[in-house]
């Protein structure tokens, strides 16, 4: 159970990072933090149930994290080219 609470706490820290920070890269890192929080609980459940399914799923999740990072960073680079900044507050073109 302690592992799950740890996972929840890390997840919430990630959410807070997303909500509070303006730097897009840090927001991306917060997302990664949230993903890794889920990894902790997967591995913990794997241990708890005595099978390896959780670990297999975590390995798949790593690939998804890599995808997310790749696409996210490409988007950030694109946005930086557009505005010369990674401040999320500048990207509000949808409002206009």
């Amino acid at each position: 159970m302690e592992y799950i609470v740890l996972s929840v706490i890390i997840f919430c820290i990630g959410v807070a990072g997303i909500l509070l920070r303006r730097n897009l890269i840090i927001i991306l890192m917060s997302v990664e933090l949230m993903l890794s929080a889920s990894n902790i609980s997967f591995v913990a459940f794997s241990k708890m149930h005595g099978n390896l399914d959780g670990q297999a799923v975590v390995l798949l999740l790593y690939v998804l994290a890599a995808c997310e990072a790749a696409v996210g960073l490409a988007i950030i680079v694109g946005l930086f080219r557009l505005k010369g900044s990674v401040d999320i507050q500048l990207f509000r073109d949808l409002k206009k």
Partner: protein
Amino acid sequence: MIFYLIAFGIVVTAILTIASRNSVVSALWLVACLFAQAILMVTLEAHLVAAMQVLLYAGAIMVLILFVIMLLNLTPKELKWKFIAGERLILGSGVIYLAGVMGLALWIIYKKGASFVPAAGGGTAGTVEAVGKLLLTKYALPFELVSVTLLVAIVGAILTGRGK
């Protein structure tokens, strides 16, 4: 006992990750956090996952992020600790939210009183052979799907990042 030590390390590094002014420092704290998580996974006998955590997360993804950070070469002005607009509302709600979720979690622990009990009989050592076999039999379809996702992500990243 060792769990609480590692958990403390993970939480502290995670908080430092989102609280650091400089994104490079932030990334480094995240690396530390992931490393600590890897150690935690070793204590859970998930050796392959731990190695992969270091190899993929710390070794590849975070290097990529650092690479981008350095490529963008942010000015000092960018590095300031800034809240987003409507900060008081969001900050307040965020704090309430965090407190609420954590309180909820703690309350559940308290109420249920359950503690972490590993399954009897073991068999959870995450060796390469065991996990690999599982990935290629039971999780063969997700495995393939994830590969396709990766391919799509690569193509997408190249197209997005190539610019004009």
